[in-house]
């Protein structure tokens, strides 16, 4: 990691594969989110080495890469969990600086973590509205600070139904009585409900089985169908190729290229990811 690498990987003898995305960076006014020249170092370790990234309206962008390639660092830098040392982040064309995840959340960016970030003993509705509970209207809410439990339950049910999650009916059910996939569905539904700009899914299927993974992929399609862009971080090539519009390949703190499921095969993606081959520059 000590040798600086950038997205302009040198052409070498390992050979190249077809054209990547256009080298010309998109105008930030056309993107939902753009990162430009993002740099983040941890002591002598280079986490991000001048990375550019774009998220277009209504697309699913996957970020793939080997362990330590800078996937998580990139996402954290975009969502306020880390502050980049240098570089710019644009949201809807305006430069933003998120200092905490709460800042990003306030701007309409929701993140789902692989660790199933739900409180098991609380019910589905409580988890959906955790951290942004609604109070009752009138003096019961303003003076006695009572929660609008009924309203939140109804809205939680609507959100789940909108995303086609039919296997869970009772919003008063404790989350710990749900399967792993259903729990992740609650977390994804929460993100989809409150996000206004885009949703980030960080390895959402890492802890899930095959069938449950399918359910989460379905949810990603549902979110996309509702017009919200999605950033998906994943190790799983079949999943990535199934749902993505574009694939950002992180490598050694930089970007080894942006491909699409149509332009390249999963095998080629893995080859680029591991450095066995490089993308031909257009």
């Amino acid at each position, binding site marked *: 990691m000590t040798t600086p690498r950038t997205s302009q990987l040198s052409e070498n003898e390992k050979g190249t594969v077809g054209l990547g995305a256009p080298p010309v960076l998109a105008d930030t006014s056309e993107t939902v989110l753009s990162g430009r020249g993002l740099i983040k170092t941890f002591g002598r370790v280079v986490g991000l080495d001048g990375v550019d990234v774009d998220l277009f309206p209504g697309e699913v962008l996957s970020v793939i890469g080997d362990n330590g390639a800078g996937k998580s660092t990139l996402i954290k830098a975009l969502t306020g969990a880390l502050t980049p040392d240098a570089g710019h982040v644009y949201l809807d064309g305006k430069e933003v600086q998120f200092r905490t*995840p709460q800042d990003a959340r306030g701007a309409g960016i929701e993140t789902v973590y692989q660790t199933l970030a739900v*409180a098991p*003993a609380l019910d589905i509705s409580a988890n959906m509205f955790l*951290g942004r509970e609604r109070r009752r209207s009138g003096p019961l809410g303003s003076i006695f600070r009572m929660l609008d439990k009924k309203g939140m339950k109804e809205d939680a049910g609507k959100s789940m139904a909108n995303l086609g999650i039919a296997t869970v009916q009772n919003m008063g059910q404790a989350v710990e009585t749900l399967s792993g996939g259903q729990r992740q569905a609650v977390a994804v539904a929460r993100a989809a409900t409150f996000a206004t700009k885009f949703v980030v899914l960080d390895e959402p299927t890492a802890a899930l089985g095959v069938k449950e993974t399918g359910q989460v992929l379905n949810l990603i399609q549902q979110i996309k169908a509702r017009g919200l862009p999605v950033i998906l971080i994943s190790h799983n090539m079949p999943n990535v190729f199934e749902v993505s519009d574009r694939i950002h390949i992180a490598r050694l703190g930089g970007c080894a290229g942006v491909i699409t499921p149509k332009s390249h095969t999963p095998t080629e993606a893995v080859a680029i990811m591991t450095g066995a081959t490089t993308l031909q520059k257009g």
Partner: protein
Amino acid sequence: MTTTVEPQAPHTAAEQFAMRQQSPLQRIQQVLHSHPSISPLLVLILSCIVFTIINPRFAQPNTIGIILQQVSVIAALAIGQTLVILTAGIDLSVGAIAILSTLIMANLAANNGVPGFLALLIGIAAGVVAGAINGALVTRLKLPPFIVTLGTLSIFTAIALLYSGGQQVGRRQMPSILTWAGTPILIGPFRITTGVIIVAILALIMAFILSQSSWGRHVYAVGNDAEASRLVGIRVDRVLFSVYTVAGLLYGITAWVQIGRSGTASPNAIVDANLDSITAVVIGGTSLFGGRGAIIGTILGALIVGVFRIGLSLAGVDDQWRVFATGLLVIVAVSIDQWIRNVKA
């Protein structure tokens, strides 16, 4: 994109397994899981019936009044303890804080000529400050609550003894407001004290806040999964700090109840309060692992201990059997908690 269509019928083996008839035991497990206060309630009712059969004097209003008075101090401390345990913490400094508060109120009024009402408020404020110190140590130094409160248990006890010179303050030396919580009142046939009413009101207020406010919900969430709570934007440290501070407030108010109950402010009072309050919380079905439990359970737990004390003494049994039975109840209660936490969907 493959759209996964849910298979309609026939059901797979696993689905049939999921829809199998549940055994009565499993159903009990599920009911207890959603209503953890049922088991202490059953224990309370059963023990009352048994003790009444052994000695009919148990059911007399007089006895019930005495139980309520005896239980009041531990129940009040246990309300604060419940808050702390709900966040997966533990407070070993309960008794020390309460004693410190009683001695500050009593000494200020008796020896420093501070008006009774002001002395009372300063004493309660001392409880709040002591709780806040616990909270600050837990959240700032990131120390385990067990260690923090083990340390402050000694520190607060030492301060209380140094401040009071180890001397107790008698009833005659205190203004009437400090002993007001010992005023007897009759409610129907039951002879209780104003202190019992204070504790009942505290319990109602805290139960309401825990179940109806977003702060209450955050207390449960933090105890349940602190990392998940942080990720959804709950300020975990703030919640923890507020819990220890509110607990301190409750201990400070309990100090007032304690002076009313015993008529004196003594550095040697309520020495068993730490373990007794934890016992009440645990018997009441609140999980030591955090995130699960309720004030009503704690009150039931405190009542169970009180009922056993009087019931066994009316049955003519050596008091050590009460201690024995309390120990047994704690172990049974925690076993039940473990069992219902393993409930399946």
